[in-house]
Structures are given as C-alpha cells and as structure tokens.
C-alpha cells in the first residue's frame, strides 16, 4: 500500500469539500420547497451517523482499505465480487460528477463549448492530481477548500439588500412526506457517497482522530448547506427555487452592480474536482489492490478514459440527469452506501468480540 499520510485537518477539508461538491448544483433539499431546511437537518443528522458508521468500520479494521476489508470479512470470492461492484460504483460516481459539472458549465458559462471538451480538460487535470497521490491532494485541499465558505459568505453579503427573512414560512405546508423524501435523497447524495473515503481513511496519520474528524466535517457541511439554503430562499423565494435549474447560480447573478458568477464557478470547480479526484483515486486504487499490482498509477489513464466516455454516454439530456439524480440514484445507492457497510460493521464487531481470531488474522 502507498505510504502516503494526510493530517486530520486535511481529511476534514477533503470530506467537507467532497460533501459540498456537486450538491451546489443539484441540491436535493429543494425538492421539499420551503421545508428544505428541515430536510437538510434530518438528512444531515442521519448522514453524520452514516459517516460515523464508515469511521467505525475503518477503526475496527486498522490500516486496511475497503477492498481489503471486503476480502477479510466476506471471504475471497464474494469479497472480490463486491469489490468489483464498488469499483464500478466509484467510476460511475466520478463520471456523474463529471457530467453534472459539464452540464452546468455548458448551460451557464460556456454555451458554445462542446460538453466533451469541458469534461476532457477537467479529466486531464484530475488525472494529474490522482497520479500525484493522496498527500498532494490533501495539501491541495488545504489551499482550496477554505475558499468555499468564504465565497459563500461574500455572495451572501452581496445580496443582503434583497431579502425576505420569513420566506421559509409556512412550516410543513405539504405535510411530512416530501421532507422525508428530500432528506433521504440528501442522505444518499452527498452523505452516503462518502463511502469512498473508506479507501482514504487508512492514510490518516492519527487514527484516534478519525471519528471526530468525520463527524465534524459532516456537521460543518450540514451547517453550510443550511446557510446556503436560507440565503437562497430569502433572496429567491420558494417558487423560484423550485423552478430554477441551478439555484445558487441564480442567487449569485442577482448581486447588483458586479457579476460574481465566476466566483461561484470557482466554488464549484473546487468542490467538484475534490469529489472526482477522491472517487477516481478510490476506483484506481481499488482496482490496483484487486489485481494485486504494486502501483495504482498504472491504471489512472485507462480509468480516466473510461470515466470520460461513461460521462458522455450516461445521459442523453439534462432532464434524464435530473430525473436520475432524484429518482433512481438513491435506490441504486442503498446497497453500496447502507446495506454493505452495515454488514461490514456487524461482521467486524463479531470478529472483534473474538480476540483470538483477530490475532490470528494479524
């Protein structure tokens, strides 16, 4: 395994940036209209629990990545099959982020640039980052991720003159079910997607901090979501939020006098690139461990090419993308994000209760 080490702060920033990633473009909480903040609260709380589950799995299986844990707990054959499915899932996730990102850029900023070109340029940069290794990505996050909240605050200050602070009323207008649906969507996108971090957790230099770091980052991401939701709803009102394709983008173009749209794009590029880099690293490294080769960098080009092709292939148009993100992605993700991790946690706990066995494995 690669001997790269990242600090607690870097991991915190990576998880926050990852959670923030494409949620900026496609925020599932808007499905609940005015009650989106309730959905964010519920989704955030359950999401934090889910992250704690992932952290516990990593703690119970010290310095092992997801692929190794799967093999240990499910046996070689089943473990390898599930590992292949996970690698597929990570590649799929990376291409979906590519596509979201590309579609957004296309609709708002680069209307005449072909989608493929935007994604390809993005993919080349991501390939370089993945080949540089986890340490470099961690240090990159230290420089870039702090910009995300700063930019969010700058945009909010810019539009402080246009507001309606009671716009989130009435509470529970359409009953509880849209909130439950939205919070479930929010749980699977983005919180559940942090299952990829099971490939990153072994790199943390101070293992005892893992739980604290993951909980803190989930909570701060929830806080940021809430902040942005309240900003958007006070400025736009619930009708427009429901109608607009890219909500925070709409907020950022409302600032009178200057055009802060590029700032918003910067925000998006930071979150999106961290998300893609992590997913692709997880996929490539997983593939590497699955085959038993010694260096994950051998597969980066191949996997990046595949991600690029898949991202073009995956949807025909933007409606399919939105429909998929809202209606199919959550159900498709349940086994990867909830069922298998819970089984892993359960199996790991059983093994832990039997220390003699644990020793023999080590």
């Amino acid at each position: 395994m690669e001997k790269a080490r990242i600090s607690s702060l870097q991991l915190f920033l990576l998880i926050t940036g990852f959670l923030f990633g494409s949620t900026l473009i496609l925020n599932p909480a808007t499905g609940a209209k005015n009650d989106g903040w309730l959905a964010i609260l519920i989704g955030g709380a359950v999401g934090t629990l889910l992250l704690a589950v992932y952290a516990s799995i990593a703690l119970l299986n010290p310095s092992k990545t997801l692929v190794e844990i799967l093999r240990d707990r499910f046996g070689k054959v089943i473990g390898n099959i599930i590992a292949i499915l996970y690698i597929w899932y990570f590649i799929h996730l990376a291409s979906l982020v590519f596509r979201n990102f590309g579609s957004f850029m296309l609709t708002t900023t680069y209307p005449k640039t072909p989608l493929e070109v935007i994604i390809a340029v993005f993919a080349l940069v991501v390939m370089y980052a993945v080949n540089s290794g986890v340490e470099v990505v961690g240090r990159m996050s230290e420089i870039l991720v702090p910009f995300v909240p700063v930019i969010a605050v700058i945009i909010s200050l810019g539009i402080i003159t246009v507001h309606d602070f009671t716009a989130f009323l009435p509470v529970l207008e359409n009953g509880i079910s849209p909130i439950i649906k939205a919070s479930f969507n929010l749980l699977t996108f983005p919180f559940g997607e942090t299952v990829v971090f099971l490939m990153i957790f072994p790199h943390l230099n101070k293992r005892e901090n893992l739980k604290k770091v993951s909980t803190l980052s989930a909570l701060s991401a929830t806080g940021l979501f809430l902040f942005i939701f309240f900003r958007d709803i006070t400025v736009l009102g619930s009708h427009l939020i429901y109608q607009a394709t890219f909500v925070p983008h709409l907020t950022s173009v409302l600032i009178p006098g200057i055009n802060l749209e590029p700032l918003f794009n910067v925000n998006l590029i930071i979150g999106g690139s961290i998300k893609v880099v992590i997913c692709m690293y997880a996929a490539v490294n997983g593939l590497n461990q699955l085959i038993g080769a010694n260096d994950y960098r051998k597969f980066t080009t191949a996997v990046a090419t595949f991600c690029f092709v898949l991202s073009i292939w995956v949807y025909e148009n933007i409606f399919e993308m939105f429909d998929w993100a809202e209606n199919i992605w959550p159900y498709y993700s349940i086994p990867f994000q909830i069922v298998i991790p819970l089984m892993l946690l359960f199996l790991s706990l059983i093994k832990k209760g039997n220390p003699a066995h644990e020793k023999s494995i080590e």
Partner: protein
Amino acid sequence: MKIKKLAIVLMLPILLTGCWDNVDLADINIVTAMGIDKAEDGKVIVTVQVVEPAALQSSSSGQARGGSAQPKPVFVESYEGETISDALISMKSIVDKRLFLSTIQVLILGERFCKDGINEALDFLHRDYQSEYLTDVLVAKDVTPEQILKIQSDMEAIPAMYIKGTIENTAIRAKVKRTTLIELFKDIKNKCRQVTIGQITKVNEKTVKTEGSAVFKDGKLVGWLDQYQTRGYLFATDKVKSTIVNIPVTNGKMSIEVSNSSGKLDVEFKNGEPAKLSIQVNLEGNIVEYIGKETLDSPGNIYKLEKILSQEVKKEIVMTLNKAQKDYSSDIFGFGTVVHKYHPHYWEKVMDEWNDVFSRLPADIKVEAKIRRAGLIKSPMMKDE
C-alpha cells in the same frame, strides 16, 4: 531537456487566452434595449435597439468639430415571428451581426402583448443564458415599444440609457414601480401576489415619461395606476425611499420630503376566516417648502401638520386599494403572502380564488407621520399681514 520542458510550459498559456467561441466586439451587435409586442394576427414583434460603438465615438468628437452628417449612434429594428426566439433569429436576415443580449438595459413590453399575458416572454428570458436578471422592465402605454425605442433624446446618445436614467430618477421620488426581470420571475406564478410593472409613455419625439404603473392579474394586464396611486401602493408595500408629498395648509401649501418610510401588511383572522386587511405605514419627513403665513415654531402646529400629512398619504393608499379591489380585483399588495405564511391551511382552500376574497375584505389603514426638521429657516418667507 530542461529547455524543452520550459518551452512546453511557456506554450501552455497560449491555450488559456479565450473561450471556445471567441467573438470580437466588432462582430456583435450590442443590444441596449428590447421591446416585445404583439401584432394584430397574434404574432410576436420583437424590437431591438443596437448601439454602434464607432458612431458613438465619432458623434462625441464630431460635436467639437461642428459635425457634418453623422452616423446615428443607435439603430432600431423590428421583426415578426411566432415566438420571441423565432423573431430574434429571423431578425438576422436584416441585421449584419450576432445580437448580443446580455447588455440589455431596458425591456419594454407592448400593451397588446401584456393583455394576452406576459408568461410567454418570461419563459424565453428565464431560459436564455444571456438574460441579465436586473434588467428594468416597463410597459408602454398608448404607444408601441418600437415608437418608444425610436426616440432620439438630446440628453443621452443612447435612448436606452436615457430611459434607464428616467426610471432611476422617478423611482427615487416614488412615482413609478421599478420592476426588474428577476422580480417578475419570482412573482409571475405566485398566487400570493400579483405583478405590477412600471409604465412608460411618449411625450414627444425626444422625451419619454416613466410614471405610474401597470397592474396585472394572473400574468395579464388589467389596468393602470396613476402616479399618486402608484405612490400609495409603494407606501403600503414598503418600497418608498424618498418622495415629496404636497399638503394643503391654511392659506397656502407645503411640500414635505419623506425621508424614511416603512409599510407593513397584515390580515386579521376571525374564526379561521380573514376578517380585515390592515396596512400600517410609518413615515418621517422634513419640510422643504412652505408657502403660507403661520410660523412653525410651536409643537402644536407641527402636530397638526403631521396629522394632515398622514391624512394625505392615507388618501393615496385608500385610493389604490379601492382600485385594486373594486376595479381590478388583483392583490398587487401581496396580502396573500401573509395568509400563505401564517395561515397555510386556510390558504390551501382559498388559493385559486384569493383575488375575489381579497376584493371583498374591508381594510384598516393606519398612517403615522412625523415631521423632524424644517430646513434652515424657522418662519416662512411670506410676510405677516
């Protein structure tokens, strides 16, 4: 090897110089104003006002030289089409360059177009990435948008800038409802509040006037408010920044500049049904002109003036409310928002016929006026007899 690497690094910035479809400024037509109207047969007429940067330059230097035949700084073209985008694309057959819409300053809607509903225009403008959300929107009264855009003002070379300037000026004295595109997007499908848009009329070939506003119901133009009714509306909806109110006093008149005003809407409920609309306005003003004889030094006098001032403002609000309730049956104030927010269950039942409910409700209007300062002199200039 090092030189080779350096050469590659130095070549990379060449790739960073522009977008995919770099278009030079000389290759686009900068649109400063757009007008949308409907023809008799239901087709859409789109009018654009395009700036010629070169002509602008020569006209400013040309004036110094005493100028011979100058090219016009702007040109105005209209075209008919099935939809707005169709008209804009078809217009390419008569203009020479690509139309660049992000620079639109003013959007003028025709009366006939508004009567059929403005949702059509908003769909295109909201979908199109070039739209500038803070564009000012106006409705042309008794005149087509094309005629408005064809004026040639002496004050500004570009008519669009001139129109925008008048909106800004008039909005400061609260005689026109200033509506930006984003507000229309927000409210057009909102059942809680009906849309109002500022009104523009043509005075002569050189001047336009932006005063008053157009009242919409469910996206369709239903009527107009004059400048005083508009001000009453703005007072009630907390949009007055400053204005001059003239009040009658004994043996004379007085102008008071309102420097601070806040309006609050509420709907009182009784037994789960709305019983009364209430409007509460608090305002502060200074005396800026006084044509009369009494001195103003006693607090009692000022108190009387405050009474008169609040009566005047109240009169305007009552007039507007009556018009909105009786003539147009359109909740332009946004009382529906209050009902929706604080009585969601009742709102659900009444959502679709809220305008009718609104029209039936009695109203309670309270205006509190305070006069703070009287300027540099204490007694009036007029002599005591």
